[in-house]
C-alpha cells in the first residue's frame, strides 16, 4: 500500500535502524525516536488519535508516526486514523525540531496511553 502523505518534513530519513537515543543537541538534525506499543484496548481510535494530534500540534517539531513501512504526520488526525493501529501494534514515534527533546517523552506517553482520558492532562 502507498502510505498517506507522510509529513511536511524534508529532513533526511536516517533509516529505521537508527538507535532510539540520538542525543538532545538542538543542532542535531536527526530525529529523536521511540518505539511505542499501542495499549489502548480499543486501539488508536478516533478520540485518542484526535487528542494525540492536538498534543503534537503544540510542539514546533515535526512529528511522524511510523507503522512498518508507512509514515504519517502525527499532527494530522486523518493521517493517524489511516494507521488503524490495534492494541499491541508497534509504532515508531519520530520527533524532529528545536523542542524535540521536550516533545518526545510527552508524545510517547500519549501514544501509549490506555485511554484517551489519560491524554487530556498532558494537553494542559
Amino acid at each position, binding site marked *: 500500500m502507498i502510505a498517506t502523505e507522510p509529513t511536511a518534513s524534508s529532513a533526511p530519513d536516517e533509516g529505521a535502524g537508527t538507535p532510539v537515543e540520538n542525543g538532545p543537541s538542538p543542532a542535531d538534525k536527526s530525529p529523536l525516536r521511540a518505539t511505542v506499543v499501542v495499549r489502548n484496548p*480499543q486501539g488508536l*481510535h478516533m478520540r485518542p488519535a484526535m487528542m494525540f494530534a492536538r498534543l503534537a500540534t503544540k510542539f514546533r517539531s515535526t512529528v511522524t508516526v511510523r507503522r512498518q513501512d508507512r509514515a504519517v504526520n502525527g499532527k494530522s488526525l486523518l493521517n493517524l486514523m489511516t494507521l488503524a493501529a490495534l492494541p499491541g501494534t508497534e509504532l515508531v514515534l519520530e520527533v524532529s525540531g528545536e523542542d524535540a527533546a521536550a516533545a518526545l517523552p510527552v508524545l510517547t506517553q500519549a501514544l501509549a496511553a490506555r485511554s484517551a482520558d489519560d491524554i487530556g492532562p498532558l494537553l494542559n
Partner: protein
Amino acid sequence: MKNFLVRDALVPSLAATTKEGAIRELVTALQRAGYFKQHEVDAVVAEILRREGLGSTGIGRGVAIPHSRYEGLPRLIGTLGLSKAGIPFDSIDNQDVRMIFLLVSRPDQPGPHLHALETIVRVSESDEFLNRLLAATTRDEMWEMIQNTPDPWTRE
C-alpha cells in the same frame, strides 16, 4: 465499505437539519433494517450523542463519522446519510456536513471499527468520490458506489 454499511439503511436525502436529528434518523434506519429493536433506538442515539459530546466526529470535507459501541450486535454495522443542504456538526473545519457515516460496533471487536474509520478517511480524501456520492439520489445509486469502492486497506 460494503462489508459494514447496511444497504437497506442508507438514506439518500436526510430530512433532519440538526446533528441530533440526523443521528436519530440514521439509527432509526438501522432499526428498520432489523439491526435494533425499537426500544433500543433511544439508547443507541444517546450513546452516539455522548460520544459527540467528547469531541465532534466531523472530520472535515463535509464528512462526519458519528459512532458508538453497543452490546449485542452480530458485527460492526453502519449506514450513510446524505444531506444536500448540509448540517451543522461542529466539524474540524467548521463546515457543515453532507455525508454522515454512522457506525455502531461491538465493544469486543476494535479491529473492524478501526478499519472502517480508515476506509472512510481514505475514501474521503478523493474529491471525485465525494462529489459522485453527493450526486446520488437513490439508495440504489449509493449502494452501487459503495459496492464498487474497494476497501483501501485490503490492498495492503
